[in-house]
């Protein structure tokens, strides 16, 4: 399957991130079309397109929009989740660097459809360069009259606020994001009420991922049939696949959903020369790892689920045989322990305990009994925690043990760094020390 650059079609142009570059390639025409079409029709259009959320869960976007009650005389808010923090995920950040106006135009259309006069872009705080770029794009859009009061004489007002997060993975969880945006500590909220009913400032709100919203102008301009010509019936459209790890050309590859990992690998120049795939993760550290025999699985929500993992953010990580599974899993758990918000017991204590035991394995002091204990701890976190962070934290180890039990057994008497030279797994492996 070939690549189909849409969002990324003009990233190689010097001014792709500027309004001039965006408009030269047909930008800022879709929102006018949307204004002429009508808000309910836009919601129907997005529903019909089958677009699914690109933030990880894959929830149908149009359906999510339709949950926002209309005619309720309350302010509505559109919130863009740009808190991309998943280990291995790096697709929203490049998108906002290279094509921020697609996001902004998508915001205009989405806000118009759900009758929101305020939109917030919640950007992770660790990327000031992206903040500057999106901020200047917003400024350009205001200057062009595409944002603000009575946009293009349509009577539709929209203010867009760019907000920088303060460095918490949990704020990617939509209700924690809303709390953080309101100035509180970012911790997930009890649902119901759902954000569509009482979200930001207790008003109807919709939280969408950056890539999801950036898709909207293209769908509006080119139509449902065009969009559905990519991908599969259940996973229509195209996706920014951010391939990372032990590949020759890591980067963003935009392709229809349904492309296989093997095909993507080829686009990415294959596994590092002289090495072979040991395991891979289809979409960030929160999805179970898969083995090389599943490289031909189409990258769709449904096929990856059938293979025992999740498409997640669609950002595959490839690991070759120099990788210590023990070290990888320990690293991920250190992350989840650090990022657990502390609200619920299973995640707060469970990630702490998992990390504690896994560090023993990394140091070569684990026991075989510990392996059963780790599995049991994971089973007591998954499905028990308040939000999906706990579920995610309970994901890496069971999959790793399923495929690489021998390595954990080996780690009961040999430190991971002795079994696997850490340098061998790096880009500078083989360089003169």
């Amino acid at each position, binding site marked *: 399957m070939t690549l189909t650059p849409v969002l990324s079609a003009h990233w190689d142009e010097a001014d792709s991130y500027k309004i001039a570059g965006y408009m030269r390639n047909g930008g800022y025409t879709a929102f006018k079309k949307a204004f002429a079409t009508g808000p309910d029709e836009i919601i129907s259009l997005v529903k019909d397109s089958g677009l699914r959320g690109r933030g990880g869960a894959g929830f149908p976007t149009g359906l999510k929009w339709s949950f926002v009650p209309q005619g309720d005389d309350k302010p509505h808010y559109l919130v863009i989740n740009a808190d991309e923090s998943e280990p291995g995920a790096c697709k929203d950040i490049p998108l906002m660097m290279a094509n921020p106006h697609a996001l902004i135009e998508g915001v205009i259309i989405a806000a118009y459809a759900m009758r929101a006069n305020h939109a917030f872009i919640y950007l992770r705080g660790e990327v000031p360069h992206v903040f500057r770029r999106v901020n200047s794009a917003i400024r350009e859009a205001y200057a062009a009259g595409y944002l603000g009061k009575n946009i293009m004489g349509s009577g539709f007002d929209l203010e867009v606020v760019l907000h920088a997060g303060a460095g918490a993975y949990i704020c990617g969880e939509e209700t924690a994001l809303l709390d953080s945006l309101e100035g509180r500590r970012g911790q997930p909220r009890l649902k119901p009420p759902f954000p569509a009913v009482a979200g930001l400032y207790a008003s109807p709100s919709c939280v969408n991922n950056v890539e999801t919203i950036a898709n909207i102008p293209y769908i509006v301009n080119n139509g449902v049939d065009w969009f559905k010509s990519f991908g599969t019936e259940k996973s229509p459209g195209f996706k920014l696949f951010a391939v990372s790890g032990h590949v020759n050309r890591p980067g963003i590859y935009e392709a229809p959903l349904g492309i296989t990992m093997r095909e993507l690998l080829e686009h990415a120049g294959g596994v590092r020369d002289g090495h072979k795939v040991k395991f891979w993760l289809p979409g960030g550290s929160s999805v179970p790892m898969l083995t090389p025999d599943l490289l031909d699985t189409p990258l769709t929500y449904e096929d990856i689920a059938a293979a025992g993992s999740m498409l997640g953010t669609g950002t595959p990580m490839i690991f070759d045989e120099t990788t210590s599974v023990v070290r990888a899993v320990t690293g991920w758990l250190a992350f989840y322990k650090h990022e657990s*918000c*502390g*609200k*619920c017991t299973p995640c707060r*204590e*469970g990630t702490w305990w998992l990390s504690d035991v896994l560090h023993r394995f990394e140091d070569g002091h684990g026991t075989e009994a510990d392996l059963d204990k780790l599995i049991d701890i994971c089973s007591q976190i998954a499905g*028990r925690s308040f939000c999906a962070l706990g579920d995610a934290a309970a994901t890496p180890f069971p999959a790793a043990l399923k495929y690489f039990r021998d390595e954990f057994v080996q780690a009961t008497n040999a430190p991971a760094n002795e079994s696997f030279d850490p340098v061998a797994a790096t880009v500078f492996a083989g360089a003169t020390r």
Partner: protein
Amino acid sequence: MTVTTQTVTVTVDGVVVEVPAGTLIIRVAEMLGTAIPRFCDHPLLDPVAACRMCLVEIEGQGKPQPSCAVTVSDGMVIKTQHTSEMAEKAQAGVMEFLLINHPLDCPICDKGGECPLQNQAMTNGQGETRFEGTKRTFPKPINVSAQVLLDRERCVSCARCTRFADQIAGDPFIELLERGAKQQVGTSEDQPFDSYFSGNTIQICPVGALTSAKYRFRSRPFDLISTPTACEHCASGCALRTDVRRSTVMRRLAWDAPEVNEEWNCDKGRFAFPYTSEGRLTHPLVRDEAGNLGPASWPEALRVAAAGLAGIGKSTAVLTGGRVTVEDAKAYASFAREVLGTNDVDFRARAVSNEETAFLANHVANKPMDVTYGDLEAAKSVLLVSFEPEDESPIVFLRLRKAALSGTTKVFAVAPYTSAGLAKMKGTLLAAGPREEVSVIASAASHLSGDSVILVGERAAQTPGALTAVAELAAKTGAKLAWIPRRAGDRGALDAGLLPIDGRNTSEIVSATGSAVKGLVIGGVSPEDVDGDLLSAIDKAQFVVSLETRHTEITAEADVVLPVAVVTEKAGTFRNWEGRDRSFAAVIPTPGALSDADVLGELARELGKSLSVSDFWASATKPALKADAASTESVGNGQAVLSTWRHLLDKGSLQSGEPYLAATARVAVVRVSPATAQKLNLVDGGTATVSCCGNSASAPLIVTAGMTDDVVWLPANSEGSSLNLPSGCVVEVSQGGN
């Protein structure tokens, strides 16, 4: 009004039950007698579903669900830990997680023996730990306040304390900080600790993370003897539980009274009890011919007292103070009117007026309970007059805040400025200094209807015309009217007839002592509370009998001192502001401890009479209510009209002996409006001195926007200000002081 409650049918552990729609699963289980273990759940706090201890299985759902946060729906099939392996395993897992970092210090923990974590670890946990690492540690304890100490290692992050502070008390008190395993309860850096209700957080803490400085390490729950009691401090009428070890009160807890204090109380009610055992009178005292006060036997003391009173009975006045029980009040009333034959009897140890006497006689005394806490919650609007609930009746404050937050009730206050308490009730200020109160009360009619309640405090007696205006306002609008005094015994004393109908009021008694009034019988009165010089009146009196619990300035000057029991030693009843009787049992049965009623009974017998239980108000002639003349004293240069009330934690004698509590008292400030500050050359943040009749107090000045001009506010008899004058006085205000 018919309320139709929609019901749904659900199955819990195979038992089919019909319950109101919207009920939480955990509550349904409780109705069936099934205890689902829990930590963060509290019926009076919003669900948070954080601890995950109460997970149950709901048929059709793949994951166990928190029963504290999920409401039932029709046909729901719920399986608790008793019938679901999934629920049982999930609960055991959560318990194991909670214990991995919990210190194993139960043997020295205050909570050990009454600890939900300890108890539920036994019922729903595993016998052995699988944790082999090193437990997380924190330095401990840390002071959340002078009174509340935090052990972060024991904390299970249930957020009960933080939700209490936020949802119930509304104080910027404590918050959860940091994240993950480092999450901890902490205090804010720039918002000072300031809560009258902090002790509740200790009580609802499901582990030993929050302890009180007062009780910490003092006893074990299983060594305590617990008695249900009623609070003797204010007129809120809280149910308490008093815990005693070896005849010593160790602690007091808020007890369950859904119609009154729900499950809360204030820190004063919780911690101010050392006075019951300090400086106590142990035997009667009699003044000999040389003028020396010396110990005497009960028969001798009663004989001397009776002899002294016999000759001057009708010229004797009786002052009871505000701490009498209903039973003692009836005894005082009978003793005064029937034994001594005097109508000079007054329970009001404070500034009083004859307008107030008429108001109380006509609108409050012996009235049935027609305004309740429930009425406050149901009222469309509540008008507060001369009444600062947070300081003067904290449980009324909590109930009004609950009502205001729920959106049913709007609170309006005729007050000099928007107090912190009023702001927490989302209340509206109807700004008035003492001289504007009457007109502002009259104009408050637009906020009231038949669905409203007017709450008037005892301080209204300090403003001539205020109580008449209040009565007229109630009549005009149809709003219900209730009077909320500051002390627990006030309403019972009023109902018993300890009001000077055809007699002298407190101030008149004080000024007539030495002439028309020859003798005094004084119960629990602090001289500084009385508007007038009680101590020099005692000096002038021919004969003074003091019934007291402790050595005081009055007992030092009395001719006969008769020791009486404190609340812990006797049974009795306080009647709260609603008119609701709050009975309590003796906590420490003490042989020889006599209540005021017992002593008065003996004294009556010594006088050849006996006490009766007649209903005073059945035959009393109530004076007509008419407004006293407003003050015409001019406000000169450098002067302002004083507005004042007491902080909840003040210098009251019943709070003595509890330094941790005293350290949490609010410190006095002086408040004036911006225009008045300019006029009086006062600087915000500087020190201002308020003085009158030779007394003065200095405190930091806060220029307060929205305050009435030419008014100065300063708390009375409080930490940082010993000035104890009634509102309405014209005082000098100057910059500086110390």
